Every structure is written in C-alpha cells, then in structure tokens.
C-alpha cells in the first residue's frame, strides 16, 4: 500500500504528513521546476526527504486502484514504481493582471503576491513599499474574482492601513466575501479606513505615464462624484490558472479536465477530490482555488481515500468482458471507456477492478465482442422480451432509465403519488450509455408503441459521456426511422436528475399522449447499420 503524492503545495505536504502519521507508505514526486525550497517545506513538516523523488516527470500509469504501475523519468533515469493510489496536488499558477488593467510593471505597480508571497514586511517587500502616499488595489474588474484573492487583498490593505498608516483604496466589481470570516474582514478594513469603489455600470480609467506612474479617474457610483487618485503604489490582482505540468498530468493519467483547465471535470459525481479514475485523486490547487482551511480539508480527504484502497465496501457492480475471439482490436473500447478500465496489451482486456460497469463499451463495440455481466444475472435483453407479454389497453411505453438518475426519479414520482402512464415499463440500466441501438429496436419489436431513453443531464453523467453516446444513437435511429416512414416521434431521449419526480411523471405522460395521437405502431425490422 503505497501512495504517490505529486507536487509540493501545502495540500501535498499535509497529505504526506497525514498519511505517514497514520502508518501509510508514501512516495513524493516533484518535477524539475521545483527548487530546494520545496524539499524544505516537506522537511519542515517532519517528512524525511528520502521519500522524495526530485526532477521527476510521470511518463505513464497502467493498472488500476491498488495496483498501478507508474513509469517516471527521474533525474535522467527511467524508473517504475508499484503504487496503490495517487494524489495530485500540484500548485497552480498565478499571473498578474497587468494587461487587463492596461498597466506595465513598474516600481510603483506590483502584483499582489509580491506582498503576500514575500510577506508584506518581508525584507524584499519592505524596500519597495512606499512610506507615504496612497495605495490602490485593483481586483476583479472586468472579470469575476474569487474569495481567496479577495481575502489577500483585504488583509494586505488592512496591514497598510493599520500598521503603516497609509490610505488604501480597493477598486473592484463584485467583492467576493463568500468565505469564512470575509464579511467580518471587510468590515474591519472599512473601519480601519479602507475606501471601496465598486463598479457596476461604470469603470475606472487607469492611466500610466512613461515613468510608470499611475493615475486613476473614476466615478464613485454611490455619490456619483468624480475622483482622481494618484497612488504611490498600485497593487494588481492575479489570475489563477492550472500549470503546464498539470495539463501534462491530465494527459498521462487520462483525467477529464474542467472548463477552467483544472484536473476535474465539472461533473457532480466527482464532488470532493474524485476523478474519473478510481484510485487517482486530485486535491487542493490542482482542482480548485481554495483557502487554507479548504486545502487542509482536501488533504484529509486525500489521506482517508488513499489509505482505504482498495475500497472493499464498493458494491459489486456489473463488469464488462471482452470475448477474445470476436475482438478485431479496433480499440473502440479503449477510446470510449470513461474510467480507463481497458488495458492494452496484445489485445484489449477489461480490468475488473477499474470497470464501473457502465456498458458504454458494450454498446459501442462494432463487433458485439463485449458482454456486460451483472452480479445478479440481470439481463436487459430478457427484460425487454418479458415486457411484451401484457394485454394492451393504452400505449405500451418502454423506458430505458439510467439507474442513477431517471430510475430514482421514477421512485420519487411514485412516492409523491403522481400518476404515471398505465402501460409504462421501466427497464433500469447502469448508464444510458449501455442502451445500444439493438436494445431500442428490440423494444419496438416486442410491441412497444414508443421508446423513451431517460438519461442524466448533460454534464452530470457518472460515466462522463454515457448520455452523449445515448443521444447520438437515438438521433441516428430517428433519422433512419424517418427514412423508413416510421414515426420518429415514437423514440425520444430526455434528461432527468434523481430528484425530478414531478418531471418524470410529466415526461412520461406527455409521451403517452403523443403515442395516443399517433395510434398503435409497428416496427418490424431486424437490423440497422451502425
């Protein structure tokens, strides 16, 4: 049981400490950009530098939680390590916002981390900090900032006001006080004399002369009076973004990234420090912009989750299996598996411990070479066949429901007492990505008047893109239906969340009404080309 920790952020250091103290084995990997101060951070936390590999890049990661083989380039050599779990806690990058405010760095124009990084009274900082004049902070103008930067700005301004007795101004859009203690800090800065200018329908004019001196002209939106400030020091806030190495790591580990480039997609199923891969966690600055407490929270999350690998309480899910005889090595499965559960050797095979049983590969494999084995022998094909045995009084609706969302929404609808279509037959599937075209056609062949595929909302599929695969198949089938003069309205795909009982009833009832208008339908075709 050994955990690999990547990075030297406070979150990485604390994760290492927590794991060691609780008797777990660790290995720390720092890439070439990290200097000796990174090692000092670990030492200060009581961690033996013997655990640290410096000048190390991760090259590849094979295997699954509890049994990863990680290849790295370390100090010119290639080394291979057996690892049970991975914590990525690389530091993010901060870039001063000079350009956004039309400024150039100058003696009187400094980035925020110059004050916070070296310490506002650090030896370096104190030389550059003026001892008279006004201080202006520019933050969150023309873009939305965040509470971590807001806290740094307010703390710095408070120091200037109280300890150095300098007049400070904070120029901002929305002041982000959504963090612990920040509203209180905001009041403290105001009491100490900081003046805030908040801009909504106007913006300040920021001018800089050839010597770098700054002049700011603005309208105070509360009084509508004009002001002109010539600060001795202008402090510019910073944009936080993922580092280049983080992007490399995303590629090496096959992690989905978010719209902001951090190593977690916005998918709710990754809430906390989870990624799309079991056993690989992304904590602190590699997933989000968090304050000190948030980073500590993340390191505790990382410690508990990696020390518990393999997670023996995970319920037994369905597992995919590739029948070697039929596989033509097209690698469709490798490409579509959201959990990186396909191992590539001479031929692809499924790693059972990494497979989450979504069935996307089953539905996508062009050769039908993959089966999905349920622990309880549940068989969707049988379930479809059984459905047809009932006498018809109203349209027969077969609804393929994702077990995580629509399946739960159905239960909620029943529990809340909503009326559901009389002849609604629900077939629960692990993920809508499992609903192959064959299943849909077989539902029609078994006398369904209409078929519904009910998936999670875009961006909330546990298997990341299962709902997108399902949608693509449905759209393709609808297209084929219209070419065959079969009403394409008999097939629909809709999205639901687990808490949408009302909408479940609404969607199914509306669909039933559509079918009533269309009358009884009959589709007898055997194969549709993929």
């Amino acid at each position, binding site marked *: 049981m050994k955990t690999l920790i990547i990075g030297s952020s406070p979150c990485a250091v604390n994760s290492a400490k927590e794991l060691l103290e609780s008797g777990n084995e660790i290995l720390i990997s720092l890439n070439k950009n990290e200097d000796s101060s990174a090692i000092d951070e670990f030492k200060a936390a009581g961690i033996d530098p013997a655990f640290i590999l410096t000048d190390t890049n991760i090259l590849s990661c094979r295997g699954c939680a509890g049994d990863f083989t990680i290849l790295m380039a370390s100090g010119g050599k290639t080394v291979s390590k057996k690892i049970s779990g991975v914590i990525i806690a690389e530091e993010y990058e901060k870039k001063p916002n000079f350009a956004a405010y039309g400024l150039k760095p100058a003696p009187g124009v400094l980035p925020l981390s110059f004050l916070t990084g070296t310490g506002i009274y650090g030896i370096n900082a104190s030389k550059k900090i003026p001892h008279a004049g006004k201080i202006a902070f520019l933050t969150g103008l023309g873009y939305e900032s*965040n509470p971590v930067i807001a806290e740094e700005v307010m703390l710095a301004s408070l120091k200037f006001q109280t300890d150095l007795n300098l007049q400070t101004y904070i120029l901002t859009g929305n002041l982000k006080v959504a963090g*612990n203690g920040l*509203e209180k800090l905001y009041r403290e800065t105001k009491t100490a004399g900081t003046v805030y200018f908040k801009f909504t*329908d106007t913006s300040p004019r920021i001018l800089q002369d050839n010597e770098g001196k700054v002049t700011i002209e603005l309208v105070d939106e509360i009084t509508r009076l004009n002001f002109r400030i010539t600060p001795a020091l202008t402090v510019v806030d910073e944009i936080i973004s993922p580092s280049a190495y983080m992007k490399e790591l995303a590629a090496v580990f096959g992690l989905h990234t978010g719209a902001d480039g951090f190593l977690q997609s916005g998918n709710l199923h990754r809430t906390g420090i989870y990624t799309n891969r079991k056993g690989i966690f992304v904590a602190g600055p590699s997933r989000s912009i968090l304050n000190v407490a948030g980073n500590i929270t993340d390191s505790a999350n990382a410690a508990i989750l990696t020390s518990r690998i393999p997670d023996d309480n995970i319920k037994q899910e369905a597992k995919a299996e590739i029948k070697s005889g039929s596989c033509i090595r097209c690698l469709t499965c490798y490409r579509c598996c959201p959990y990186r559960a396909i191992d590539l050797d001479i031929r692809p095979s499924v790693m059972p411990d990494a497979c989450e049983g979504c069935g996307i590969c089953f539905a996508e494999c062009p050769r039908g070479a993959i089966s999905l084995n349920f622990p309880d022998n549940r068989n969707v094909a049988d379930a479809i066949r059984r459905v047809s045995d009932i006498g018809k009084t109203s349209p027969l609706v077969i609804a393929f429901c994702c077990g995580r969302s629509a399946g739960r929404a159905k239960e909620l609808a029943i529990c809340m007492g909503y009326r559901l279509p009389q002849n609604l037959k629900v077939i629960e599937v692990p993920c809508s990505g499992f609903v192959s075209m064959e299943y849909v056609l077989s539902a029609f062949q078994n006398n369904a008047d209409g078929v519904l595929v009910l998936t999670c909302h875009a961006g909330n599929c546990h298997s990341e893109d299962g709902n997108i695969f399902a949608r693509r198949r449905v759209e393709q089938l609808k297209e084929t239906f219209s070419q065959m003069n079969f009403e394409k309205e008999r097939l629909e795909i809709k999205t639901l969340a687990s808490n949408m009982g009302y909408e479940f009833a609404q969607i199914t009832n509306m669909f039933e009404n559509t079918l009533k208008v269309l009358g009884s339908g009959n589709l007898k075709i055997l194969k549709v080309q993929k």
Partner: protein
Amino acid sequence: MDSSNVLVIGGGIAGLTTAHELSKLGVKVELVEKEPFLGGHAIQFTCKAIESCAKCGACMAEEKLNNVIHNENIKILTGANLNRISKNDRFHYNIQLNPDDKNQSKCTGYSSSADAVIMATGFEPFDPVKKPYGYRVFKNVITNLDLERMLKTNGIALKPSDGMPPSKIAFIQCVGSRDSKLNHLWCSKICCASALRMAHVIKSRKPETSVTFFYIDIQGSGKDFEALYQKAKEDFQMIRAIPGDIYKTEDDWLKINYFDNLSKASIEEVYDMVVLSVAMIPGSKTKELAEILGIIPCDTGFVGSCKNNGIAGSGGVFVAGTAGGPLSIAESITHAVKTAWDVAKYLKTRGR
C-alpha cells in the same frame, strides 16, 4: 477499530457523509435525526438543470442517502431527539423516539454510549419576519427555500395567492446575511448562485417572465459561474441596491422601494412575486447543544473553526457541515469526510 461507536447528531448531507465514511472504516455509527426524514435541507431542493446540469449539487443528497440506508454499520434513528448526554470517559446518552414516527405507537426511550460525538446539526434558514418585506403578511412574498420546494413539486413558480404563474419576479439577496444590525457578519455563500439558477429555470420554462435581482455583491466564482452570471446580466435586470419596505398595491401587486444611484432618486417598482434569499444562520438549539457537549460556539453562533474555541476534536466532540458555518453542498461533503478522518485518528489514539 472494530466496534467503537460514534454518535452522529443530524442526518443532513454532512451527517450522512461522515456516517458513511466511518462505516467504511469499520466503525459502528448511530445517527439521530430529529425529523422523520433524512437528507436535511438539501433533500428538499429542486434540480436546476436546463438541459445541462447546473452543478447545484442538490441531487448529491439522494446519492448520499442511498449510501447509508441498508448499511450494517449504521443504525439510523429518525424522528429522534437526543435528550441527555454526559461524558464519563465515554459519552452516555439517551434518545427519545417521537410517537409520530410511523413505527412508534408511543414515546419510547433508548440509551446507548459512544466514544465520539459528531455535531452535524446543520443550519436554520433566517426567518425574514424580522425584515420589513411583508413575509407571512403578503402571500406572494416567499423565501428561496419556499421557491426550491415549489419548483420541486410544480416544476414552475406559482403565486401562492391565486396559483397562477407570476409575470414579474423580484429576488432580494442577502436577507439576513451581511447584516450588521442583526450582527450577522457573514455571507451565506450559496444564495446568489442558487437564486440565479432558479431564476434561469423559471425563465426557461416561462420565457415571458421578467426577473429583477436586488443585490450587494454577486457571489460565486469559477468558469461555470462566469457563464451563469453573464447570462443573468443578459436576461435579468440586475440592480445593486437593497430595497426598503415592501407594500401591497390596490390590485394586489407588491411595491418595492429602492434608492437608485444613477438618478440619485428613490424609485418605486411593482412586482407580482418577491423571493427573499434568506441567510443560513446557526440552528436555534446549536448553542445549547454545544454547551452540553463542552464546546464554545464562535461569535457568529456557528461552531466552526474560529480562533479560541478549542474544538478540533478535543474531548471527542467533532463538527461536520454547516453546523460550523455556511457551506455549499459540495463543501459540506468534503468537510464531513475530513471530520470522519479526524474522528478515526481520535479513535486510534484511544486504542479503539
């Protein structure tokens, strides 16, 4: 750590999460919830997706709930109140099961003991009756929590007065938050994004609805938020002002009065529904319970990590979730996981 008992007080997102995490470490957990249902506030929320998931986190409550029911390491007591607890090396407590719980015909008591106690008692919504907005006086003045439940049961917003969809809605933010008169010196963190998302849902289902926001600073950050906020600026009227009183007009509309900085004049505008984004405040019994357990609440009234309150598990009492201060659902979850880790470490030091 086989048979150690941990008592979790509160079955919201935070209580459910810590209980589940501890159960995975083989710790036996007892979870008491005063209400007859589990899931706390979040289980009452509506999904705010419009085709795409809006990342509100509400559906996490369902998932967490499914983790704890049928878990052999977790004993769940709903409709139950902790009525006595004392510490003598271990905690000894007494629980009263309410008669209205469907399995119980009359009040029954139950005694047990534990090595550690986790306060996961959550927050309470601020009661806006104290504000001049006519809550509980005018039917069409509702809270964000009322709107969550309304959208969850009806899919659209409906005016309580006549059951018809409103045509002009005003959202008032920070009702009871960031309020020095009430000594509520905190931002509740989630109400801005939550209200914006609900407004988008209403507008997408009834595009003719007009929406106005009154706010101090719009909170929220990150890429998803930028998009959400950008769309809000296009679709809604965003007014940076906190309204004074609300009056009712003769034709049953609600008149809002606010000071407009641009024209430097007091402006009156009418709406047919007003949503108050009420604050998350400490539970009314939080202080009492904290004192019984021997911990000192912060000056905000929450029992979170603030200077000099000496919680951090000293003496075996821990806090999870919004009992410690305003948090989102996602933050409540990570906080609760951390608490589980702290508790596990504590149990180890006690040789459990």
